[in-house]
C-alpha cells in the first residue's frame, strides 16, 4: 500500500483546479447559509461546513494516493460496489419510499454513490486493457455493457433514477470516448426508440411518470407535481439580471421553493444573484470540467485518461442534469448539484472523484502541458 503514497509525483499540485473547487465550494456554502436562513433547523450551515472540511481531507487523501492502485483493485472495487448495491436492497434503510442507505459499523453509506466511481474505475481498466482496439464493435462492447447494466438496474430498483441515469450516461460517454462503431450508435438509438414505450409502461414508477408528465406540461398539473417546477422558475426568473441580493430571495425565504437547499439549490442562488451570478457559477463549472478533460488528455496512459475522463463526465452529467431540471429544461429527478447542494454523501463522493482526477493530474508525464 505504501508504494502508492510514496510514488513521486511528476508535477506540482494542480492549483488552478483546486482553486476552482474551493471557489465553487465557498459559493455553495455562502448560498446554503442563505437558503436555509429561515428554516427552523439552523444546523444545516454548520453541518455542511464540517462536511466540507471532511471533504477536503478526503480530497487530500485521494490526491496523495497514486491512482494506479485503482487499476490493481478495480475488480474487487467493482465486486464490492455490486455487493453493496445488492445488500442495500435487502437490509437498506428506507426513506421516502426508496432504499438507498446501508449502515456499516455506525457509518451510513449510500452504495449508489460508490457505484458512480466504481463503474468508472472498472470501465477505465477494461478500455485500458483493450486499448489496441480502435473502434469497439458489438461483441467487444457486450461485456462492459453488461457490467454497467448490473449496477444501473440495481440502482434503478431502489429506486434512485437520478443516480442510475448518471451511471448510465457516464458509461455511455466512456464508450463513446473509447471509440465505438457508427452502426452501434444507430442500433442503440433504434433500440431506445423501440423500448421507450415499454419502459414507460412497465419500467417507471407512478411518481416518476408523474414527474415526466409534469415536466412536459407543468401547467397541466400546476397544483400537484408541476408546482415544484413552476416555483423554481419563479425563483430563478424573478432574480432577473442582477438578482435580489444576498438573503433577499423571497421565493426561498418564504418557503415557496421546495428542496431549496438540496436539489433546488441553484434556484435560490439564481434568485439572489441573478443572471450575473448564474454566468459566474456556470463559468466556474465549465472551467472545472474543461480542466478535468484537459487532465484526461495529458494523462500518462489510457487508464488514467479513461479515469479522469469518466469521473469528469460523471460530475458534468450530474451538474447539467440538475441545472436542466431546476431551469425547467429537464424532468425532475432527485439529483444534487455537485459541491453546491446540502448533504454529506453527495459532497464526499464528489470530493472523492475530484481527488482521483487531481491524482491523475499530478502523475502526468512532465513534458506534456
Amino acid at each position, binding site marked *: 500500500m505504501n508504494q502508492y503514497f510514496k510514488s513521486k509525483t511528476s508535477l506540482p499540485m494542480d492549483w488552478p483546479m483546486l482553486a476552482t473547487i474551493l471557489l465553487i465550494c465557498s459559493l455553495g456554502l455562502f448560498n446554503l447559509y442563505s437558503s436555509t436562513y429561515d428554516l427552523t433547523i439552523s444546523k444545516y450551515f454548520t453541518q455542511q461546513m464540517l462536511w466540507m472540511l471532511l471533504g477536503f481531507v478526503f480530497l487530500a487523501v485521494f490526491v496523495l494516493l497514486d491512482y494506479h492502485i485503482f487499476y490493481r483493485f478495480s475488480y474487487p472495487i467493482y465486486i464490492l460496489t455490486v455487493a453493496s448495491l445488492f445488500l442495500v436492497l435487502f437490509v437498506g434503510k428506507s426513506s421516502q419510499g426508496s432504499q438507498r442507505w446501508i449502515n456499516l459499523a455506525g457509518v451510513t453509506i449510500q452504495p449508489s454513490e460508490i457505484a458512480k466511481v466504481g463503474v468508472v474505475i472498472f470501465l477505465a481498466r477494461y478500455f485500458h486493457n483493450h486499448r489496441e482496439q*480502435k473502434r469497439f464493435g458489438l461483441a467487444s462492447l457486450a461485456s462492459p455493457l453488461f457490467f454497467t447494466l448490473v449496477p444501473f438496474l440495481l440502482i434503478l430498483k431502489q429506486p434512485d433514477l437520478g443516480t442510475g441515469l448518471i451511471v448510465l450516461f457516464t458509461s455511455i460517454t466512456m464508450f463513446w470516448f473509447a471509440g465505438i462503431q457508427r452502426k452501434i450508435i444507430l442500433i442503440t438509438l433504434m433500440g431506445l426508440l423501440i423500448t421507450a414505450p415499454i419502459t414507460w409502461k412497465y419500467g417507471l414508477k407512478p411518481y416518476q411518470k408523474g414527474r415526466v408528465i409534469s415536466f412536459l406540461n407543468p401547467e397541466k398539473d400546476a397544483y400537484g407535481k408541476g408546482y415544484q417546477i413552476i416555483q423554481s422558475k419563479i425563483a430563478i426568473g424573478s432574480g432577473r439580471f442582477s438578482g435580489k441580493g444576498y438573503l433577499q430571495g423571497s*421565493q426561498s425565504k*418564504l418557503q*415557496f421553493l421546495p428542496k431549496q437547499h438540496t436539489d433546488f439549490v441553484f434556484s435560490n442562488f439564481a434568485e439572489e444573484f441573478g*443572471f450575473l451570478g*448564474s454566468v459566474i457559477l456556470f463559468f466556474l463549472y*465549465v472551467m472545472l470540467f474543461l480542466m478535468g478533460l484537459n487532465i484526461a488528455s495529458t494523462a500518462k496512459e489510457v487508464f488514467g485518461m479513461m479515469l479522469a475522463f469518466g469521473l469528469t463526465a460523471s460530475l458534468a452529467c450530474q451538474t447539467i442534469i440538475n441545472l436542466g431540471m431546476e431551469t425547467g*429544461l429537464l424532468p425532475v429527478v432527485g439529483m444534487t448539484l455537485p459541491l453546491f447542494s446540502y448533504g454529506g454523501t453527495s459532497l464526499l463522493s464528489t470530493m472523492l472523484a475530484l481527488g482521483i482526477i487531481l491524482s491523475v493530474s499530478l502523475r502526468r508525464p512532465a513534458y506534456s502541458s
Partner: protein
Amino acid sequence: MIRLGEPKTKDEFREQLFKASYFVIFLFLILLGRVWFLQVLEGDKWQKFAQANRIKLKNIPAKRGRILDRNQKVIAANRPLFQLQLLRSKSQLPLEELIPELRKFIPIEKSVEDIKLESRKINPNYPYIIKEDLTEDETAIMMAKQMLFPGLSIEAIPVRDYIDETINGHLLGYIGEINKIQLAKREEQDDFSYRLGDTLGISGIEKSFEPWLRGKNGVRPVVEDVWGREVGIELSSDLLPGFSPRLPEDGLDLVLTIDKDLQDFAQALTIENAFSVVAMDPRNGDILAMVSNPSFHPREFVNGINAEKWKELQQDPRNPLFNRSIQGLYAPASTFKVFTAMAIMEENIASPDQRVFCPGYYRIGREVKRCWKHEGHGWMNLEKAIKNSCDTYFYEMSLKLGIEKIKYYAEKFGLGEKTGINLSDEEKGLVPDETWKKAVYHQPWVDGETASVAIGQGALQTTPLQMAVAYSALVNGGQIFTPRLALRTLDKDNQIKEEFHINPKKTIQFSNEMIEPIMKGLYDVVNEVGGTAYWFARSNKVSIGGKTGTTQVVGRKSGLKIEDHAWFLGFAPVEDPEIVVSIMVEHGKHGSSGAAPYAKQIIEKYFELRDEPVF
C-alpha cells in the same frame, strides 16, 4: 509498479476530448440561454409573481347536494358557515396577546390554553380554526378588523342545513369529516378523491347516496402578501396558464321516495314508547316514510358531535342510535299468520271453508298451547281465523304443515333475508327450523315450536321493513320489491341527471282463489264487528285492511316497563292498495290498541295528502 503501455492513439483520444470539451461548453451554453430567457427576457413576468407572489392554492369546497322529498320539498340543504381561521406562520402576535385582542370584538369560547394546545398540533402553514360558527354580526365585525391581524382570515364553508327540528336522523343519516382510517381504506381501493378534512356521509341516506351527493372541490389560486392576506391581484391566465381556477362541482340534489309530510306526521305520532313506522307503496316498493323513534337530529353531528352528547345518546336506555326499522328484530306475532295461511292453502292442507273448533287452547302431546282468547273462538274457518286472529286454528294446521313448509313460505315472502334497501347495517332476521335449532341449541325440534312459529312467535325474527315488503307482495299480487329510497338526482338547473329504477326482486306465484279468503280475512279484521282492529283501525275515509300482532315479551329490562310489543300491518285501499304501513310499538301491549290506531292515522294522512290540491 504496474507496467502500463503508452497509449497508441493518443491523438485520436485528444480529438475525442476536444469534442467532449465542445460538447460540455455547448450544453452549458444551452443552460445559459435558458437562464437568460428566464431571468432577462421573462424576468419581469416572474418578478411580478415573486412580488405579489405567494400564490397559494385555496380549496373551494363544493356544495353537497340537497336532499328533497318526492314532491321536492327540501329536507336538507346547505348554508354558509363562517370560520375564523388563523395562519400561525403569518401571525405576528403570540396567541396570549392575540386572543384577548380578538375578544374585544367577538366572544371566543375556547380558552387561550386550549387554543395553544390545539393549534400546536396543526402545521403553522395550515389554517387553525379559532372559532367555528360565526354569527352574521361577528362575521361583519371580523371582516372589518381582519386587516389589523396578519394571518387572520374568515372563510365561508358550505355546511348541511336541516329545515326541520324533527328530522329523523336514522333515515337521513349524518355527515362528518373523513378520518384517517376511512381515508386509508378508500385509498386502498384506489379512490384518491378524498382529502383529510373533507366531508362525507357517515350513515343513512347521506352515506348510501354519497357518490351523488358529494361534489368535487375546486381550487382557486390566490395571491397573498407576506402576511398571508389575500391581495386583489388578478392572476391573468397568460401569466401562468395552469393557474386558472378550477370551479367546484356541486353535488347533485337527491329526490327521495319519501313524502316529507307523511314522514313528519309519522315522526310526530304521540307514542310514548319506542316505535318504528315503515310506509311503503306496494306498487313499486317506494318507501314513503320510515321512522324509528327515539331518534337523534343529524345536526348534532354536523360539526363533529361532542363527547358529552355522544355519551348521552349511547347510554340512553331507549337506544336512540338504533334504527328499529331495519335493525330491530322482533317476532312478527299474528301479523305472520297470513303467510301460514298461504302455506295451508298452497299445500292443500285445508280448504278455506274447512273449520277448526277453538276451545281456547290446543293440546300438543303433553303441552297445552293457549289461544289468546282463553274462552275460545268456537268454529273457525280460514277467513274467520284471520279476522279473530285465532291461534288454535293455526296450531292445528301448522302440525299438518310442518316447520319446513312454513319456513319455505316465509322465505318466499322475503323473511329471513335482507330486503336489500340501500341503507347500511340492515338485519336479515331469522326463520327457524330444525337445522337451525340443532346448530344453535343442539336440541331436537319439537312440535310446540312449529305451532309457535305458525302464529309468528317463538324464535321467528323480522324487521318492520321486512314485514312491509312481505305485506306489499301479499297485496300486490306477489311482487317482492327491493325497497326504493330515491327517485332521481337533479343537477343545479333542476334537470334530471339520473333516474333510480324500481327493483322487482322476485315474483311469488299464487292464484286468486288462494289470496281471496286471506284478503277477505284482512278486510274483516278492520271492518267487521269482532275483527281485532275493528275499534281501532276502521276508517270512514278509506277502506283499510290489515292484521294486528302482539309479540310476547319475556324477561325484563331495568327501568323500563315490560309489556308485549304491538304490531299492525295495514294497507289501503283494500280494493287496490297504494300504501302498506308496518308499525311496531315496543311494549305497546296489544297490536289492536297499541299499534292499529296509528296505522290508521298514517293511512288517512296519506290519502289526505294525496287528494290535497297541488299548488
